[in-house]
């Protein structure tokens, strides 16, 4: 089959819905050991295992530029006027934004585009803080919401224009910050008091991350799926763990539900053939077993014995989980 007819067959199958983008990219990745993405540069950065030397050097270079801007601003802060402060930070970051867009449009130096955009991501929030500080608005309680919203809008616009991974990732992180900031803003004005409100928010955000991770499976943002899953799983398990509290303020409901959720996530992992759903909940179960042992048994059997028993339980659990992983994950992949 020549290339033309192969592509035509793929197009036809995609139109009919019999093949998804993820299936095509997965097949290509398996055959060529190359991560497929909408862009040649972003994907290699977000697939950390495949980071090459030039990426690492570029990353260090961007870090040095970022630190340089910070030093420049703070060393000469008193000597600089308001306009200069804004120009150095906000102006610089906006020029990076425009330059990155320009490079994208011209389709030249696409590799540099990513790094210049990364510089924008780092400096722009500082520029916004300087801008707000110049107008004495930094201490206002709506400032975090407003700054994060402005930064988010820039990421969304860039993302819509380019379909790159970086604006999606940084936009997602900024959207998460915005969510916490805006709910804090309204909650502080609310008549209600919800104990552990932050943990409940973290719980819902983590569920949203897990859904998002599943949702991006069939899109060009597939390389970010693993990162999104990790964030969601860690957030979800941490929230439930923290909601459980510690004796004498423990909440039995959350302590009871933690292992059920963790095992449930592992089951979902088997169903979806997703290793993150196995590794992170497994660590969660180990930490949970240690916590429960010390919480309930250290008083009755004493600390040394609790340590010994907990250690033995963890060894047993670890061996079982490794065997379980071999059987259900490694074998299937």
């Amino acid at each position, binding site marked *: 089959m020549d290339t033309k007819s192969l592509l035509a067959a793929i197009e036809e199958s995609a139109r009919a819905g019999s093949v998804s983008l993820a299936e095509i990219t997965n097949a290509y990745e398996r055959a060529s050991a190359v991560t497929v993405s909408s862009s040649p540069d972003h994907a290699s950065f977000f697939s950390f295992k495949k980071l090459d030397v030039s990426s690492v050097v570029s990353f260090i270079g961007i870090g040095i530029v970022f630190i340089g801007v910070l030093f420049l601003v703070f060393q000469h802060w008193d000597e600089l006027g308001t306009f200069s402060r804004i120009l150095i930070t906000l102006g610089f970051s906006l020029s990076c934004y425009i330059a990155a867009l320009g490079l994208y449009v011209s389709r030249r130096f696409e590799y540099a585009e990513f790094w210049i955009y990364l510089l924008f991501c780092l400096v722009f929030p500082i520029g916004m803080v300087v801008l707000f500080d110049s107008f004495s608005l930094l201490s*206002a309680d709506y400032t975090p919401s407003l700054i994060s919203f402005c930064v988010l809008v820039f990421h969304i616009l860039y993302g819509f224009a380019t379909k790159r991974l970086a604006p999606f990732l940084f936009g997602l992180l900024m959207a998460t910050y915005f969510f916490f900031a805006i709910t804090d803003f309204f909650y502080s004005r609310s008549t209600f008091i919800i104990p552990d*409100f932050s*943990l409940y928010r973290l719980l819902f955000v983590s569920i949203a991350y897990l859904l998002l991770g599943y949702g991006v499976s069939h899109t060009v943002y597939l390389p970010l799926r693993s990162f999104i899953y990790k964030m969601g799983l860690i957030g979800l398990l941490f929230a439930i763990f923290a909601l459980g509290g510690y004796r004498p303020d423990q909440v039995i409901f959350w302590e009871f539900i933690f292992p059920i959720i963790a095992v449930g996530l592992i089951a979902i992992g088997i169903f979806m053939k997703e290793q993150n759903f196995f590794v992170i909940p497994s660590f969660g179960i180990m930490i949970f077993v240690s916590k429960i042992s010390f919480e309930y048994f250290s008083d009755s059997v004493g600390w040394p014995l609790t340590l010994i028993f907990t250690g033995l339980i963890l060894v047993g659990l670890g061996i079982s989980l490794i065997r379980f992983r071999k059987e259900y994950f490694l074998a299937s992949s």
Partner: protein
Amino acid sequence: MKLHPKIALWAAFLLPVCIVLLAIISVFVPQSVVRPQHDFLYALSSNSYPISVSYRVEQGVLVRDQYQLPESADTTLKESNAEPRLYIYRVASGESIPVAYEDVQKNGFFLNPGISPDGYEVAYNRGPDNFFGLFFGGYDYDSRALFIQSRFFSKKIVLTRTTGSYGYEYPQFLGWLQ
């Protein structure tokens, strides 16, 4: 059964949006749901740690501690350590009535610095959950405000300003009047 990725994407977007909407709606719940039955006594000071005079409650009775500032203390320190002023907060009218220490003694008020008999307490900031507030700006701390709180509801009360609109003042809750 397999969840369609598009539905998952919509759910991932709508879940946080719903929580933000609930947070917005919660602002419109009137503070009149917080209805304590007891007035309370508080002190307002221009210094967060008054040195010359301070008040405390011992077994329900207001105690005044007085210290002599050294002669060498500078004028600014002496001025900033002006004696804290006492007020009774009338919950029915929402007014703060100035009261002298001697009058509190004379009336023989029993002060309860903990939870009122009807289940309310006075806090210095909106709590109990301000962990993320420190990072996201929602930490509601006002040096001129106190919060009357039950388990699930909170009401902010802005106290009488006596040192000008820009002067910092530090309230000290002393106890419910019983």
